[in-house]
């Protein structure tokens, strides 16, 4: 019913607002010694994958990284700038993009169910992110892979909690606002910002 062109508009808008949402979630953060913060932004990345799916989610994440690269303090704890991309967390950031795709593929591969969502969050939101993050961290810091991987275990409890949260939140969103997962725009009264 809606034309192809206006689907493009909606897609752009969703990418932009989800990027903004990931940024806003970055204000919730626990700085950890070691330079890699524990951040709610990964929860945002997981949710992006679940809600936007494998095509749009990586673009929302990429957009956050572009904003960071051009010098906006959009990452956890108000960090940003090019320093981030030569620092120890650069790999995790790239991993977010790949992770968002994987989450989208797994979680949106069929009807949304709790196990598919949880699987997507763990595989895409944790495994894939670590897969990119840990080697780059090792490389940048000049530390062996094994100890680096071991030290990253501190994030595992938090990340598992976030994966659980992402699952619960996705299922709640499905009840609260089914059009979130649909292709067609939602109708009715406009969402007002007062």
């Amino acid at each position, binding site marked *: 019913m809606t034309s192809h062109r206006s689907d493009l508009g909606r897609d752009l808008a969703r990418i932009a607002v989800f990027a903004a949402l990931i940024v806003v979630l970055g204000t919730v953060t626990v700085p950890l010694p070691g330079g890699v913060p524990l951040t709610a932004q990964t929860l945002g990345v997981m949710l992006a994958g679940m809600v936007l799916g494998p095509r749009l989610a990586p673009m929302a994440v990429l957009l956050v990284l572009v904003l960071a690269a051009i010098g906006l303090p959009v990452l956890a704890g108000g960090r940003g700038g090019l320093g981030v991309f030569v620092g120890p967390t650069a790999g995790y950031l790239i991993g977010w993009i790949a992770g968002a795709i994987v989450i989208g593929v797994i979680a949106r591969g069929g009807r949304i169910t709790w196990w598919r969502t949880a699987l997507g969050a763990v595989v895409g939101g944790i495994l894939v992110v670590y897969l990119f993050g840990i080697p780059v961290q090792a490389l940048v810091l000049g530390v062996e892979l094994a100890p680096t991987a071991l030290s990253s275990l501190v994030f595992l409890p938090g990340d598992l909690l976030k994966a659980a949260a992402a699952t619960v939140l996705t299922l709640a969103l499905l*009840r609260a*606002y089914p059009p979130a997962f649909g292709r067609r725009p*939602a109708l009715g009264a406009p969402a007002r910002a*007062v």
Partner: protein
Amino acid sequence: MRSDTRTRHIALDGVSVERDGRTVLREVNLGLDAARIAVVGANGSGKSTFARLLNGLVAPTAGRVSVHGLDVQKEIREVRRRVGFVFTDPQAQILMPTPAEDLALSIRGVSRAETERRVREALAAHGLQDHADVPASALSGGRKQMLALASVLITAPAVIVADEPTTLLDLRNARRIGDLLLTQNAQVVIVTHDLELAARCDEAVLFADGRVIAIDEPAGVIAHYRRSCV
């Protein structure tokens, strides 16, 4: 009766509010005893800030706010329990996925069965019984505002503060929400640009530029406001 005339008193003593270095309210002194109070004034005159003071959503930079004998700063938990707040945008106030869950959120300290019972009762009282378990986001504008109001009324507040609760509603819905607010057994403070609604209150307060410039029976205050807007 929850809110009897002895304590039905809202007082601001020398209250100033600053936000981002701007003075939003300037040394406001005010005592309100009427049952139904309208707050009117231009955009940015400080109405919402005043409303938010009453349940501690905004803290005064100077001065003291008390509601029914409670100091809003010092007894904030008790104040939040007694003062219900209705936001302009019901979508900002509805926190749970469905109407039933959202109403249940307002009820604390009773058994699950009792919560369930009260929720069903409130849904029925507000014409929402057929929408208990649909996504709240899919309700029409009028029903959303009803739900937002219901989630406040279900806590039986002694004071209800409503910030432009009838905007975006049609004549009929606006009147329904207005009727409901004005017939509550509670002290009601309604911030509104809807002058018909303001006229139905017992007293009206006119804000301009962070000050109270008139406080009287509504007809006079509304006339004053209309004159100041030409």
